[in-house]
């Protein structure tokens, strides 16, 4: 075995330039894939993290049918006190749930006493909300972040602040129509300005849950949405299955399900972008496979062709076909190994370099997001294994041809 590796290595060294060129091609492919996985993964992670941590949570529970009309923020599709209790009980029992936040979503008129506009609002319990979407406070670009907000206070989207010319500390009035059609107004002090993020719900204001109840004259508990944060987002699917299974088992008198449960994926169009990134990663991997396959096959076909005489010689003096096969496969394997090894080293250096260079980019209205690419050891191993396996596959046919060669014909070849 050792000797086969030695001989294969010597032969690679004999055609140094070709070996280097092929390795470089493979290296290039590996670097492209690893950097792409790393950067896109970082971008994806940040994007998803921002959306789930500052707005959606990982999972949401609504009354059945709420999501399809969420644009209207319908108050008549809220969860009732009994339903909320059921959901609360279930979430409290679930060990994977870190926190949840009960929200009333409503639309209101927003007046600064000289102008009026409409605003979408999330009414929340500050403690629950901060535990469920800890990233929300970081979106407060002006005003006190500590404690999110108190009763009588409002966090307004920065665009409305700009358009309506209101600032932190100003008093504004919210006017809302409740389910029965009665109109009510209530003054609020602007506690802070909220940075908008791209996507639905990214430009909602925030008020206290109790304020919403008094504004809308809600007597009993009534909730539009329960946002849920999990301890481990990686277990999302399992937790979703469990919670959804339990909740959808609950039927009303007409035997229709009461709840609907959605993961963040169904709540934001950014899941499609994330998926597109995955698809792109897949195609880039296919390109890598093609590069490796074609370049290794090319080199190995050449190697066999150039060495027909030598193959005839070693076959004549008793080298078995199996050993000849092994010799050429080892050559392909070593080429793949070199390419992958150098590729991994260059990629890791590149990733470290990007982190050191503090590259930032803009996403939606967010500016100066720091690109912090990382790569999982699993990805590095997987890409290396792909390259090496494909290198072996690519040398299989030429190696097989070499091993099957008739020694006399090979010896006669010029």
């Amino acid at each position, binding site marked *: 075995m050792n*000797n086969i590796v030695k*001989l294969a290595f010597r032969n690679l*060294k004999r055609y140094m330039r070709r070996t280097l060129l092929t390795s470089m091609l493979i290296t290039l492919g590996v670097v492209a894939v690893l950097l792409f996985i790393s950067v896109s993964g970082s971008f994806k992670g940040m994007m998803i993290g921002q959306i789930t941590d500052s707005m959606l949570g990982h999972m949401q529970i609504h009354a059945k049918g709420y999501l399809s009309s969420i644009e209207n923020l319908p108050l008549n599709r809220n969860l009732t006190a009994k339903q909320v209790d059921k959901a609360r009980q279930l979430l409290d029992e679930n060990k994977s749930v870190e926190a949840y936040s009960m929200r009333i979503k409503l639309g209101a008129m927003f007046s600064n006493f000289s102008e009026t506009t409409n605003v979408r609002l999330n009414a929340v319990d500050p403690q629950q909300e901060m535990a469920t979407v800890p990233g929300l406070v970081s979106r407060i670009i002006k005003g006190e972040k500590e404690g999110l907000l108190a009763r009588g206070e409002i966090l307004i989207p920065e665009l409305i602040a700009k358009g309506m010319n209101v600032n932190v500390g100003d008093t504004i009035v919210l006017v809302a129509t409740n389910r029965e059609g009665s109109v009510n107004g209530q003054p609020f002090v602007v506690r802070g300005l909220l940075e908008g993020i791209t996507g639905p719900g990214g430009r909602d204001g925030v008020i206290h849950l109790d304020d919403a109840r008094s504004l809308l004259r809600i007597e009993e508990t009534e909730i539009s949405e329960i946002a849920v944060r999990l301890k481990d987002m990686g277990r999302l699917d399992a937790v979703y299955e469990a919670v959804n299974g339990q909740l959808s088992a609950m039927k009303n008198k007409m035997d229709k399900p009461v709840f609907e449960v959605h993961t963040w994926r169904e709540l934001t169009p950014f899941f499609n972008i994330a998926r597109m990134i995955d698809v792109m990663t897949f195609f880039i991997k296919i390109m890598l496979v093609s590069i490796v396959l074609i370049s290794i096959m090319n080199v190995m076909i050449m190697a066999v062709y150039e060495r027909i005489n030598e193959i005839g010689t*070693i076959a004549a*003096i*008793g080298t*078995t076909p199996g050993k000849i096969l092994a010799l050429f496969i080892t050559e392909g394997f070593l080429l793949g190994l070199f390419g992958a090894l150098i590729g991994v080293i260059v990629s890791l250096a590149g990733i470290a370099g990007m982190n050191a260079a503090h590259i930032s980019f803009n996403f939606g209205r967010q500016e100066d997001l720091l690109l912090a690419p990382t790569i999982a050891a699993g990805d590095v191993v997987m890409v290396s294994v792909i390259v090496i396996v494909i290198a072996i596959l690519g040398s299989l046919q030429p190696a097989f041809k070499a091993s099957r060669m008739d020694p006399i014909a090979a*010896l006669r070849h010029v």
Partner: protein
Amino acid sequence: MAIVEAKALIKNYVAGDITVQAIRGVDFVIEPGSFVSFVGPSGSGKSTLLNMIGCLDPPSSGFLAVAGQDVATLHGKEAAHFRGEHIGFIFQDFNLIPVLTVFENIEYPLLMVQNWPAGKRKARVLEMLAAVGMQDQGDKYPGQISGGQKQRVAVARALVANPKLVLADEPTANLDRETAMRIIALMKQMRDEFGTTFVFSTHDPKVVKNAETVFFLEDGMLQKEGNRKGESHE
């Protein structure tokens, strides 16, 4: 017992409609330890015959035994094992492996064909290097030595694994006369030293006279046979 025995040996090459009768029924016996030459003009069937003896090419019909084994039906892996075990080869073009040093070329059969332990291997290669007078050249690559030296290395490689039989198809065709004579002399010396049977082919009458047994081939048939030690032919 004979090292090579052929009876009514026939080899036909079929290419499409054309059948070339390369060997047309030959009978001969080669005794162990002999120094034998097949002589004949180009195309007379020397290579074909040596290839059959060397288990590189199966006969079309007839009987052929090498080292006591019927080799007519040996194929692929079995043939490779048999060659590696019993036969050494010397080629017209030397056929050393260019990426291996002289030492490693001689070592190759012990390493890649048979599985000798490292210590024994080294001793044996050094012995062979000395036997062919190349003891100072072990670290050189084939590209760095002359044709005659290459053929010396090839002789050492052919002998290193202690084969019963060494086959050399026109081993001197690419050498000048003087070097050719030295190589033939070396082969004979090796025969004397190790008792190995040498069978070589040539179309050079000057070279032939060094053979102890000469078979004349013409059109795939043996003309006459005889012990011609000391005789010369033109």
